[in-house]
Each structure stands twice: as C-alpha cells, then as structure tokens.
C-alpha cells in the first residue's frame, strides 16, 4: 500500500469557533516540525499549494497587493475567484480572501518548528466539514514539508478516506452543531 492509501486522519484537534451573529470564524492551530520560512513557502508558492491546499493559485500569495486567481478544487462546477493579498509579512502573517472567506494565517516560531494558526470564516452550516477538511489538508501539508508527500486530499477525495466521517462527526460534536450531509 502507498503512504496515501495508508493515510487515516487522527482524532480531531481542539479548534475554536468564534460566533459573531451569522458570521462564524473557524480558528485552527497546527504545530509543524518545520521552520516558519519553510511553512511560508508552502502557504504562498503556487506549486506547493497544489500539493496540499483546497485551491489552486495562479500566482504567488507572498506579496501584498498582488491579485491572484484562486480555483476551488473539487467544486461541482469550476469555481474561480480573485483575491488581493492584503497582508504578507514573511514569514509571520498572511491575509487574503478565498471566494468570500477571509483567510488569515499566523506563523509563530516554536523551538525549531512553527505554530500555524488559521482564521477563516466559513458558512456556519459547513463549519464542521471545513474543520475536518483543513485538518486533512494540514496532515498533507506536514507530509509535504517532511519530504513524504501524499498528494492533495481535498473535496470528494477527502470524504473517501477511512476516518473522514468520524473526524467530521468529532468536529461537529466539539462545535455543538449537527453534521450536514456528506
């Protein structure tokens, strides 16, 4: 079996949901055994994003003011949106927008690694699915940075993996929301 076939997500991490009326923000933290400069590259370089992120970028996200087209992977019809990078303080803080979701990344050096935090506003009905999806993305990112890439696992691909339903249900339980379809 390949590493990808063997992959199963671990238990849900502690995640936060900040509720501001209808607007909910998902806050996810992942500690990576790689320095911020290396993580920064994976967050901004289109070639690396293609290996783990749920969207493709047609340019680098690493320069403030740049306009970049983001293509959602796995959407049931091609979904392309445009964003302007609003903050790019390498290798610490990155902000842009993905199709209406504010994306704010923070990279903190811890030991030789990085504590990576993502703030993203997701439609509240799909917030547990989003948390599970990002959880899998971060696993894949970790593998990529460690030089043992699994290949991107997003959208319907993620749902095929053993453990997806469990992971999704764990986040739903943690947030006190019902599990939507899928």
């Amino acid at each position, binding site marked *: 079996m390949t590493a990808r076939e063997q992959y199963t997500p671990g238990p849900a991490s502690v995640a936060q949901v900040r509720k501001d009326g209808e607007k909910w923000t998902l806050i996810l933290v992942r500690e990576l055994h790689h320095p911020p400069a290396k993580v920064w590259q994976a967050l901004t370089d289109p070639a690396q994003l293609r290996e783990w992120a*749920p*969207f493709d970028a047609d340019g680098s996200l690493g320069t403030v003011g740049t306009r970049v087209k983001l293509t*959602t*992977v*796995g*959407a*049931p*019809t091609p*979904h*392309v*949106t*445009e964003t302007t990078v609003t903050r790019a303080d390498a290798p610490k803080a990155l902000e842009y927008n*993905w*199709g*209406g*979701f504010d994306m704010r990344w923070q990279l903190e050096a811890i030991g030789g690694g990085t504590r990576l935090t993502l703030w993203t506003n997701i*439609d509240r*009905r*799909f917030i547990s*699915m989003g948390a599970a*999806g990002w959880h899998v993305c971060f696993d894949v990112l970790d593998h990529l940075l460690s030089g043992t890439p699994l290949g991107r696992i997003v*959208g319907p691909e993620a749902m095929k993996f053993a453990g997806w339903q469990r992971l999704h249900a764990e986040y739903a339980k943690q947030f006190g929301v019902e599990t*939507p*379809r*899928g």
Partner: protein
Amino acid sequence: MKIKVASVYVDDQDKALRFYTEVLGFAKKADFSQGPFRWLTVASPEEPDGTELQLALNDNPAAKAYQQAMFQQGQPAAMLFTDDVKGDYERIKGRGAEFTMPPTDVTGSTIAVLNDSCGNRIQLTQLARRKTR
C-alpha cells in the same frame, strides 16, 4: 443527455433561498459546499425530480457584470412556466414581491416579470395553448 439544471446568478444565496422558497414556493433540493463554493438548487413541488434551478453566487466579476447588464436591459435571467400566471401573480405579489410587468398578453402566451430581490428579473410564462381558465 438531459437538461437537468438551469442557473441564475444571485447576490446572496441565503436571501435567494428564502425568496425562491417562501415567496415563489419552490423547495430546496440540493445544498452542499466545497470550500467557499456552495451548490444550491431548488425544484418545483409540482415536479420534485424535474429540472432544478441553481442559485449560483455571483462571486466573480464576469457574473456580476452579466447579471447587472441583463437587469438594466430589462432582460429576464430565467423563465418559469405556469398554468395560471394571473393566480401566481396575485399570490407572489401578496407575499411582497415586486413585479416590473403585470400579466400581459403577448404572442402565444401571457407573461409577467418580477424582481427576485437578488439582482434578477424573472419571467413567468403561461402558454396560450396551456391556458385552462
């Protein structure tokens, strides 16, 4: 091949879902998301497995430009068929929708046009041969 889905761009999917269900009387059919993309469709309760109408978010500049231009030109973004355009006009108007054209006889049909409050004009059409009253 079958024609299974038609789409209209909307400026707010939650608002659109309320309008197309509570005001027009359709039923939600599909609602799932992939990242920021939300696939949302409604269907007619008279034909639950019939053609669906996708309420697509106008979140790209081309969609916005197209939608606005069509609206300004007075062009309907979609056409719905009914057996009772006058009845539907009264019912939908009673629920607060604005009509830009009341039921009007034209060649081969009676039409009415309403504002869906999400950036579109929607035409109701009753074909003359299908008139029952």
